[in-house]
C-alpha cells in the first residue's frame, strides 16, 4: 500500500549513495506534491546490479514548481517539472 496520497507534500532525500540511482542531483532536498500514485515496481537501483529488485516499491509522480527547483528560474511563475520517484527517496514535508 502506498504511504502517500495524491496532493501530499513530500521531500526528496538528500543522500549520495554511490552507484546507479534514479533520482537526479538537482531534485534532492526539494519539496513537491504527489501528482499521482503510479503503482509498485521492482527497484531499478537493484535491478541495475543483477538483483531482482523485490519487494516492489510504490512509485509516485511528484510535481515540483520550477521556481522551487532552480533559484534563478526566470520562466513563467506556474511552470512545473514532474519526476517519477520511488517511495524510499521520499518523506512527508
Amino acid at each position, binding site marked *: 500500500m502506498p504511504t502517500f496520497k495524491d496532493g501530499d507534500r513530500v521531500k526528496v532525500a538528500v543522500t*549520495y549513495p554511490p*552507484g*546507479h540511482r534514479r533520482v537526479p542531483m538537482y531534485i534532492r532536498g526539494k519539496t513537491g506534491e504527489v501528482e499521482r500514485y503510479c503503482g509498485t515496481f521492482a527497484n*531499478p537501483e537493484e*535491478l541495475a546490479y543483477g538483483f531482482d529488485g523485490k519487494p516492489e516499491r510504490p512509485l509516485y509522480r511528484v510535481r515540483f514548481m520550477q521556481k522551487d527547483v532552480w533559484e534563478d528560474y526566470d520562466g513563467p511563475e506556474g511552470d512545473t517539472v514532474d519526476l517519477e520517484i520511488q517511495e524510499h527517496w521520499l518523506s512527508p514535508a
Partner: protein
Amino acid sequence: MTVEPRTHDMGGQPAGPIENSEHATEPWEKLITAMVGSLRERGLMTVDELRRAIEDLSPEDYEKPYFERWSAAILDLWEEKGLLTRAEVEGKMSEIKKRLEG
C-alpha cells in the same frame, strides 16, 4: 561541501542548442539493438544493468555517440558476468575484418 553530479546526471547544466536533424541508422547499430533485445529475452541482461554500465563509462567514453556507448557498456557487462572477455570480442573483430579485407 557540494557533491558534484556524475557525468550522466546533467539536469540543469548549460546545454546549447538541440540538434534535431534526422540520422540514418547504420546496420551495426541495428545489430546492437537486436542483440540487446536478445540478451534481455534470455535473461542475461536487464535494461537497468545496461543503463548502469553506460553511466559507469569514463567521461571520455560517455561523450561517444549513443550506440558506441551501448557497445562499450555491453562489453563491460559481458566481462563482469563472465560471458565473454574483451580480448575474445576484439579477437573475433579482427578475424572478421581480415576476412572482409581478404
